[in-house]
């Protein structure tokens, strides 16, 4: 079975985000970019399934500018077998991403698509769900555990108030949550091999997808700064304030 893992190039999670002076977006010039952390978890899970003999091939795909090749190379250095870059300089919204991924999935015919539950730049949390609907495949979102069986998968989901375990038929789309695994470092032998692994280049037009935005960003602004706290003298005062001022008790 083949596993398809979409990965996104985003601003590194360590970078302190700055909003552009004109409010049109966030500053991306000279900012460190990395693989979306949830996608790293997806790559890791796919590799573990392959190492356990449950999958034969791990294919990674990224949609974005030419620089997204670096992100794909990182996934290849982690151990993925092959990469597809769907190159575009446009800002691609979740629906367009899902449509392109549908095209990639139809060409690649994976048995499973593992995708991060969201990207840490726009936090949309839409692509996996839209992709599953477009393909007409089952979905298991926010996975903290994935067990593959014959023609089906058991997915443990992180839901409000606990865990929910569902069984989905394959092929399926699974979106990953933070506690699924801890991604590995790229190993030195794999770093050396990454450049030699195949990387196909495509364009959104190859999949007949129009990436023109459906949404319009009106304004981007920084979250307001945290207000100074107050010191309380006793536990009793703390409880009192939690009741009367914070309203949480």
């Amino acid at each position, binding site marked *: 079975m083949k596993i398809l893992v979409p990965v996104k190039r985003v601003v590194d999670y360590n970078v302190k985000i700055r909003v552009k002076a004109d409010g049109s977006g966030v500053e991306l010039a000279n900012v460190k970019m990395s693989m979306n952390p949830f996608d790293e978890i997806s790559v890791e899970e796919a590799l573990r399934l392959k190492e356990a003999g449950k999958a034969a091939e791990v294919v990674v795909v990224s949609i974005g500018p030419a620089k997204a090749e670096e992100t794909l190379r990182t996934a290849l*250095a982690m151990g993925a077998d092959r990469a597809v870059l769907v190159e575009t300089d446009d800002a691609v919204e979740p629906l367009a991403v899902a449509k392109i991924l549908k095209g990639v999935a139809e060409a690649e015919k994976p048995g499973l698509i593992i995708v991060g539950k969201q990207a840490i730049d726009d936090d949309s949390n839409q692509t996996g769900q839209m992709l599953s609907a477009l393909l007409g495949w089952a979905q298991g979102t926010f996975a903290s555990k994935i067990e593959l069986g014959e023609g089906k998968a058991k997915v443990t989901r992180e839901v409000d108030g606990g865990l929910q375990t569902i069984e989905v038929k394959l092929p399926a789309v699974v979106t990953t949550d933070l506690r699924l695994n801890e991604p590995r*470092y790229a190993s030195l032998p794999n*770093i050396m091999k990454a450049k030699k692994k195949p990387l196909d280049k495509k364009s959104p037009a190859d999949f007949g997808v129009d990436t023109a935005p459906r949404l319009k960003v009106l304004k981007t602004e920084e979250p307001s700064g945290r207000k100074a706290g107050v010191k309380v003298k006793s536990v009793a005062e703390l409880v009192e304030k939690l009741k009367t001022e914070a309203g949480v008790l």
Partner: protein
Amino acid sequence: MNFALTDEQQMIVDTVRSFVETEIYPHENEVERTGFVPPELGQEIARKCKEIGFFGCNFPEEVGGAGLDHTSFTLVERELGRGSMALTVFFGRPSGILMGCNDEQREKYLLPAVRGDKFDALAMTEPDAGSDVRGMKCFAKKDGDDWIVNGTKHFISHANIADFVIVFIATGEEQTPRGPKKLITSFLVDRGTPGFEIRDGYNSVSHRGYKNCILTFDDCRLPSSQILGEVHRGFELANDWLYATRLTVAATSVGRARRVFDYALSYAAERKQFGKPIGANQGVSFKLADMITEIDAADLLTLSGAWRLDQGLPSNREIASAKVYATEMLARVTDEAIQIYGGMGLMDDLPLARFWRDARVERIWDGTSEIQRHIISRDLLRPLGA
């Protein structure tokens, strides 16, 4: 001319940096406080390093290494320089001098060292023989096919975790135009060899937890088969490899300086006095400008030294320049970073004081700044007959 890293080099940098941030940083405060690295922690770091194929990456592939060229390996060292040496020492980089092993020694020392089954240390310095290596007193007397060794070595880095030590020992004397000089032979000495003892050394102001040790030889008998390279050729053997450790010191200094700079930069932007960030004052901002200029200069000098080695070009002088400049740059950068932090920079709650203390030894070990300047000027003047 191309200053860009290759994709592989960039991934090596990213991986090592991420390793240092995740596996080293969280343990630094504890090591600093106790001056001690729990053995399990050291083994864990070594295990993870092996797992990702970086252990012994400075060695050629035919002996089990990754065959990194000097430039790539210097980048590895630079990124490791960000972390505490007491911990990064477990990110195995055995001494390159082990490539001088013969077939028999290869099985017993070289291959296990590259695999990470055995740790090595290297011993040259003595209480009365620092820069003057050929003035050493530790002496081996021939006895049949064996050698009887007596003497003391000190400042021997991380010998506490070593399974064997590469020791430089006088085996004779020769007359030179500058007086009598010792002939030196390099020996492989196993921990536990009768008459050989490894003891804790002194408490150093720099690199707490990264131990220096004292080695004593008391009628220690070593068979000739323990000789690394040839009899009386130890000094030449060492000189063939010592440039590499100098480059390592330069590279780690650059890495650490960048970490220090990140602290100074963000503090200058965030700390407000008189209603504005202190970085808005030229007195602070110009410090930052000078710091980054020097760091970049040291970085380029270091990488060009590595590049020269890769090209097979003469590099002794250039590497000495990188070593002296990078280590003195680190001293200035750590000092200015504390100045930017003010009093808070001196407190144990922040790592600034540690960086400042750690920087001090870099100008001393692996050839003092004065020795580096001697190497540089000799290289310039000797061809002119001066």
